[in-house]
């Protein structure tokens, strides 16, 4: 049914069916059945809230195996600024780069090197664009998906411009090709803090080939680099920062909250946190707000510093990045222009997104009459439900249960209040209600008295 790749997977063997993920999911994409969390593919936006909250690490983020880098002659680690800020500032960027090279990469390139081009293009789009304001940044792929599934009316506000990640990947490919490397010899591996980025790379919008060869989770590389850094505490003290192409001070902060919006002229605003963004988009849909030119919306609290695959505390990460940017700004007066200035003309046409289509999860039916009939049924069912949103039915709240019933995904008796009511009236035997509860929560939660 769904042609969207998801990076988040639930491991049944580990899932204890606690429903924490179900209750936190911003798009109500999770149900509990047979004691296990179930993901509804067409609703999941890969924001990773479930991954964060799972108490038993039963939700995993699919990645490419690290060994996949080795068949390539040129092995590029494409690394976000957030990665360098995972480590205490006593480890210089040059040293962390050195550790990455020791792991087997031949090149390390920082993603924020691509921000300059994106800033330039965003400004251009804003100057041209009169009708679609506010432009909503497409930097955060979880937000793009949130708009697609929950706010289809706002899809045309999404800015059709790829993020710095793509600009950096395309640029580095060009750069290596200039030096004689062929496409097949070059493997570009993105070290990511983000499940949604993985999903976006694995299912690019228009079926075009991604410039990125593979994705490796940041926590894994963090562990590997930490080992190298500790093993070589004495070496590389002099590791040279100049071996890396460094983004400018403003670009370093691109992935933090206000990192984009502060670089864009006009009336703009930044919001982080997927639930905060959802609340704001509800308002925006109703046009209750004065007109904005540009909205920077990020799913994670503290934006990418709070990415689900980061290890360090997000506030510390953000502060290290700000401190780096301050230092960088002080040095900038004597700096050479970035190497990224080359190939602009080759890269620019590749940075446009052709189209982003709405894929509403809200609609009850394709047929209007049928949808109306279902809506009426939902209202009738809601009047019978207790409205306590306890989740004991295996759906995230009474409204969701009513929708599930109408769509054939659940039955009235899934509600434990309805069960009591039916039992009182003699319409349902206690053994049958026990069976129903077992079907939702698994037999062991009912049968196992000594759990």
């Amino acid at each position: 049914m769904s042609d969207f790749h998801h990076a988040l997977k639930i491991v049944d063997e580990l899932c204890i069916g606690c429903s924490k993920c179900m209750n936190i999911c911003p798009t109500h994409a999770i149900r509990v059945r047979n004691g296990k969390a179930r993901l509804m593919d067409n609703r999941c936006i890969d924001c990773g809230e479930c991954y964060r909250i799972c108490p038993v690490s039963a939700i995993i983020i699919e990645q490419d195996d690290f060994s996949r880098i080795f068949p390539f002659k040129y092995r590029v680690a494409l690394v976000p600024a957030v990665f360098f800020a995972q480590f205490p500032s006593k480890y210089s960027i040059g040293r962390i780069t050195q550790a990455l090279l020791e792991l087997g990469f031949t090149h390390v390139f920082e993603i924020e090197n691509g921000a300059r081009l994106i800033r330039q293009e965003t400004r251009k789009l804003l100057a041209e664009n009169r009708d679609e304001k506010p432009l909503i940044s497409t930097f955060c792929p979880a937000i793009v998906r949130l708009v697609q599934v929950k706010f289809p009316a706002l899809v045309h506000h999404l800015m059709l411009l790829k993020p710095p990640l793509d600009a950096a990947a395309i640029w580095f490919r060009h750069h290596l090709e200039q030096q004689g490397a062929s496409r097949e010899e070059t493997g570009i591996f993105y070290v990511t803090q983000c499940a949604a980025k993985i999903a976006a790379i694995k299912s690019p919008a228009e079926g075009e080939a991604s410039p990125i060869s593979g994705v490796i989770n940041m926590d894994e590389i963090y562990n590997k680099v930490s080992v190298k850094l500790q093993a070589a505490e004495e070496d590389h003290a002099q590791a040279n920062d100049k071996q890396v192409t460094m983004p400018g001070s403003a670009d370093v902060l691109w992935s933090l909250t206000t990192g984009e919006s502060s670089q864009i002229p006009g009336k703009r605003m930044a919001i982080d946190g997927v639930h905060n963004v959802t609340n704001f988009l509800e308002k925006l849909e109703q046009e209750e707000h004065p007109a904005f030119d540009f909205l920077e919306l990020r799913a994670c609290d503290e934006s990418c510093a709070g990415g689900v695959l980061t290890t360090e505390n997000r506030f510390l990460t953000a502060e290290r990045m700000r401190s780096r940017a301050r230092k960088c700004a002080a040095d900038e007066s004597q700096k050479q222009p970035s190497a990224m200035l080359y190939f602009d003309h080759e890269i620019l046409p590749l940075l446009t997104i052709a189209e982003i289509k709405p894929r509403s999860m809200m609609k009850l039916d394709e047929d209007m009459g049928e949808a109306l009939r279902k809506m009426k049924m939902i209202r009738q069912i809601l009047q019978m439900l207790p409205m306590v949103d306890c989740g004991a039915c295996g759906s995230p709240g009474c409204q969701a249960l009513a929708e599930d019933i109408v769509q054939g995904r659940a039955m009235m008796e899934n509600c434990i209040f309805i069960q009591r009511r039916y039992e009182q009236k003699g319409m349902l035997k206690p053994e049958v209600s026990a069976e129903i509860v077992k079907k939702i929560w698994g037999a062991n939660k009912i049968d196992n008295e000594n759990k």
Partner: protein
Amino acid sequence: MTFTYEIEGGNFSRAGTASSDIKKALKQLDLDYTIIKRVVVSLYEAEVNIVAHARRGTLTADIDPDRIVMVLDDQGPGIPDIDAAMTAGFSTASSRVREMGFGAGMGLPNIKKNADSLNIQSTVGVGTRLEIVVNF
């Protein structure tokens, strides 16, 4: 299918509740977003009018497969000159209301612009009745 809401005069913090609810319903029907927007914008303006001017009011929204009919009935000052009220920029809102970002005199004109039909009946000192229709 009928939705009914009570709207309380002066309660600006709740203004928009009904239009938000109706919006959710229309999204479930998968209507074209331009139509949803027209419904929501016109309903929101009408809701704010009651909050800003009247003591209280009710909204009844009837949705069927072809259209939505929204009737807003309020107990309030009424509109002495409907033609003037329909003029863009004409406003009788108090300075307090204006300070809150409302009362720019665009309410009724904006409703008319977004609705397929708008019918206003008003009795000074008694109240106003708006019937807004948007076809699907």
